[in-house]
């Protein structure tokens, strides 16, 4: 044995931290999508978990029905979910912008029930297996733990997506329009930019991120209609802690809380499910707008 750190074997400590980082990758991807949507539409997208599930299911259906493999699914599934998002925004969500934002929450809650219920009705609640792509089979022995290659890939992929999204929004011209439209849509419209279309595309992009997370999750977790419903509440808490609408806050908090959860699993496993919510309460007491949020 290699000795211990704070009375804990390093194997357990680093292992759980690494698993925490993997979970954090999903939190970050999902909360990033939520934050982008909230920033632009002021809608908390309750259907986010259902769309994440849909992403995984589309990938599974493509594999089992059409023989389309993982790598194509990684591209196509988010596109399909994004298109579905366009339809939702155009036909339903857009009718509610003049009303209280709470109606957006209620509407997407109903949508989540419908999407989840439909998949559940069709495929039952037990998970469908999705094989790990051949290129990512096997794993690395890191000394303190055996890291399956695929899980390593998830961390890398999520980091790349999160960082490039952040750069796109903070550093590019398109991102500048987006941020401006968030602050003052009327003014931006006056500059000749089609704000409604921008809103639609933002929503589509946000839910496509959820779809992407779903495809990434498919080989790890079983593809199950309920896979999103339990995750989504944690992701909500992540967004509240990070500060709603803050992109950087969502991403950093996502990874941070994943790690923290991993750490809790080592020292006090019973609390690992509630640690995120405890953190949320503490943050709200000290900084009601969230860690990276601005008081509006």
């Amino acid at each position, binding site marked *: 044995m290699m000795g211990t750190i704070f009375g804990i074997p390093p194997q357990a400590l680093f292992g759980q931290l690494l698993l925490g980082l993997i979970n954090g990758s999903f939190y970050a991807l999902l909360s990033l999508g939520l934050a982008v949507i909230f920033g632009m539409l002021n809608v908390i997208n309750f259907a986010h978990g259902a769309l994440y599930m849909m992403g995984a299911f589309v990938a599974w259906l493509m594999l089992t029905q059409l023989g389309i493999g993982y790598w194509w699914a990684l591209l196509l599934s988010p596109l399909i979910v994004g298109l579905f998002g366009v339809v939702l925004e155009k036909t339903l969500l857009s009718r509610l912008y003049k009303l209280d934002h709470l109606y957006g929450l*209620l509407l997407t809650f109903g949508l989540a*029930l419908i999407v989840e219920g439909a998949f*559940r009705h069709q495929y039952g609640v037990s998970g469908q297996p999705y094989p790990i792509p051949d290129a990512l089979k096997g794993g690395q022995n890191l000394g303190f733990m055996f890291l399956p290659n695929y899980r390593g890939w998830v961390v890398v992929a999520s980091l790349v997506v999160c960082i490039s999204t952040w750069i796109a929004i903070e550093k590019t011209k398109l991102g500048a329009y987006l941020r401006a439209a968030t602050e003052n849509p009327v003014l931006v419209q006056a500059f000749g930019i089609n704000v409604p279309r921008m809103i639609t595309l933002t929503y589509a992009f946000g839910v496509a991120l959820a779809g992407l997370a779903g495809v990434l999750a498919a080989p790890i977790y079983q593809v199950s209609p309920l896979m999103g419903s339990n995750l989504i509440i944690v992701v909500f808490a992540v967004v509240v802690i990070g500060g709603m609408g803050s992109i950087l806050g969502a991403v950093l908090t996502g990874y941070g809380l994943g790690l923290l959860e991993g750490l809790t699993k080592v020292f006090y496993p*019973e609390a690992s499910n509630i640690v995120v*919510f405890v953190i949320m309460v503490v943050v*709200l007491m000290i900084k009601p707008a969230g860690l990276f949020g601005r008081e509006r």
Partner: protein
Amino acid sequence: MSLHSQSSGRASAKAAQASATGPTATRIGALVALAALLAVPFLLYPVFLMKVLCFALFACAFNLLIGFGGLLSFGHAAFFGSAAYVTAHTVKVWGLPPELGILLGTAASALLGILFGSIAIRRQGIYFAMITLALSQMVFFLALQLPFTHGEDGIQAVPRGVLFGVFDLNNPLAMYYTVLGVFLIGFAIIWRTVHSPFGQVLKAIRENEPRAISLGYRTDRYKLLAFVLSASLAGLAGGTKAIVFQLATLTDVTWQMSGEVVLMTLLGGMGTLTGPVIGAALVVTLENYLAATSLPVPVVIGCIFVACVLVFRRGIAGEIQARLGKKSRES
């Protein structure tokens, strides 16, 4: 806030109307309703009716907060479910009589309400909804892990016991009239609250909080009090349900349950007194009916949700009142 401003105008219009048409009409209506409630267990399956009454009280409690206080809580299952657990535990393990068990359950929910309320009322609107949701999810995980709740199994085989040492609740009729009594007490408290000066201040806060503050009201206190009252009544409903079904399980503390009570209130009519009762009765009946068919329940419920939000925001009772109000104004 636009979420309630629509219904609020109507609520006050309705109040005016009620006084205009005279208390007799209302009184007759109430008497007819009461007679129906007393007679109905001879016609329908009592357990089903008790379920309706428990959820009706739960929805009324929720409505007190959203309809009259303008606060959308997405975590009311926490109060409903915790009370169910506390009642079930005290009755089964401590051997308390049912009335004490329900009281303790209600008290536990009140305490939880103070705790959650003091955290959540610092924010409004969507933030308030998210915070209550997250807090209730914490309660869910506690219910999953605390030893006394027995995790996935829940607390089972809760004895119904003997009410006040006289009425044996194993008799379905005795149980039904007990639940009816609890419901009427809860409903009376809500009615009294809404029509009290406290209720008026609450409405004032809902309409324009800064103005209420400038008038010298300590709005946070009013909001907290409304929150705690709503939590306690939700607890009363949850504790009663635990006695009726002799169970307390995780289903009662899930966020889906919080969503369900939102739907009941939305469907029946936010900010109306009878709306939540109608909504609860409809939703419970529908679920009961759908369970026997092959139609997936959540999909149907979700569709109703979407339809309510898009085209039917006043709810059933709200819609009826609006029609009646229009007619009386025209005539």
